[in-house]
């Protein structure tokens, strides 16, 4: 490796990483938190069979899962201004990522809730708890343990998917790298560098996932064995 490439790598590293910490991570965290809220609400609407709302939720999931994320970003950022709705790039990206991930996670959460044996609900009724109390205190904690690994997976996907936000002018890590690469023509080195930073982020999440699973298992007395 030439000294020039090394210099470029070293001088761009704090800039790219900084943009990762300042934009990519907040974009991911905010979007994912909102996605989780959407997911739990959608799952509950489906499980509790709320008439009317259920059809809306199914339509939303169908729509989101049937169209590409990149197209959704374009639609909202470049398309909606035609209707007089013009959002700045960052909130726009948050909205699209949250709505997109929310649809996928809704199915994960719904499946996890449905995997809790129905005897848990019945036992709850028999000791006098209400539907809401049983959901909150018995079913959702167990469903969360089941949903945790697939949700971690979704989070890891989302970290990388935020690079698509570069397309709608969000200056996150990837966009920053593109700019440096455009100026210096060191494509191989710079894209490898940003790839490594993504890898680093995802490694940290994987590590957090292990920790979280251990904690959740402890709260359930080891792996939950279901009759």
């Amino acid at each position, binding site marked *: 490796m030439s000294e020039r490439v090394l210099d470029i790598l070293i001088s761009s590293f704090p800039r790219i990483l900084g943009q990762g910490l300042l934009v990519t991570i907040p974009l991911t965290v905010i979007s994912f938190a909102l996605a989780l809220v959407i997911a739990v609400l959608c799952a509950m609407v489906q499980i509790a069979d709320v008439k009317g709302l259920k059809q809306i939720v199914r339509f939303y999931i169908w729509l989101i899962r049937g169209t590409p994320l990149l197209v959704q970003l374009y639609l909202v950022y470049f398309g909606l201004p035609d209707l007089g709705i013009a959002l700045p790039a960052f909130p726009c990206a948050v909205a699209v990522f949250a709505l997109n991930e929310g649809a996928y996670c809704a199915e994960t959460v719904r499946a996890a809730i449905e995997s809790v044996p129905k005897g*848990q609900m*019945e*036992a*709850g009724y028999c*000791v*006098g*708890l*209400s539907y809401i109390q049983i959901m909150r205190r*018995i079913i959702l904690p167990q469903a969360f343990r089941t949903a945790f690994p697939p949700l971690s997976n979704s989070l890891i996907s989302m970290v990388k998917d935020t690079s698509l936000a570069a397309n709608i002018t969000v200056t996150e890590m990837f966009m920053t790298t593109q700019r440096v690469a455009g100026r210096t023509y060191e494509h191989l080195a710079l894209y490898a560098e940003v790839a490594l930073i993504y890898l680093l982020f995802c490694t940290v999440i994987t590590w957090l996932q292990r920790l979280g699973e251990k904690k959740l298992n402890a709260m359930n007395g080891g792996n939950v*064995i279901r009759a």
Partner: protein
Amino acid sequence: MLEIRGLKKAFDGHEILKGVDLELDKGDVLAVLGPSGGGKTTLLRCLNFLEKADGGTMTFLGQEMDMPTLSRKEIAAYRRHTAFVFQSFNLFSNKTALQNVTEGLIVARKMPKSEAEKRALAALERVGLADKRDAYPSQLSGGQQQRVAIARAVAGEPDVIFFDEPTSALDPELIGGVLDVIRDLAEDGMTMIVVTHEVHFARNVSTRVLFMEDGRVLAAEQTAAFFEEQKNERIQSFLRSLDRKDD
């Protein structure tokens, strides 16, 4: 104390309970016997409104209720007087043994935590599992789980406890411990309905027997009369077939 008249229940147009009557006095232990698929579980589930009956009236503690039209609120009020022990235990798997017992007391009955724990420990003591108070269900044997479930049932101080085959999911060597606990409750005068295939237990512990087949009650008699003076041939052959299995 509890009286049922004309209880009916169908699943998908298929009638499972075809008009069941039963009576229970305070302190009674009613054993429900009968061949598989006869509707015993369905009967018990209807009694605690885990299934909604299609027809039938219930008189409980002097109050008459139309079973199919009971409101959610009335069901909740009724359930404060009852408890249910499931064939597959159904302990809350994210709660410890102690929390399984206190959950209903604290959340549903609004009992202060310290008082609930005191009562729960007494209930666990009673089933011989006070030392397992902090164990999760997955760390307990089937027999231990079922005893915790019985402690959970007892802690609410119900007027009647429903048991659906409390030992049939257990390994043979664990059955005795659970039956002993139920026998102790009977000796303390607890009112219970126990669906069971344990004929010896029914004979020794119950005060009355209800024999069900194909959604109908074939016999409802005092226990001694049921076993010693049984005239019904169908029941005789059922009892003989179980005796053979016991050998």
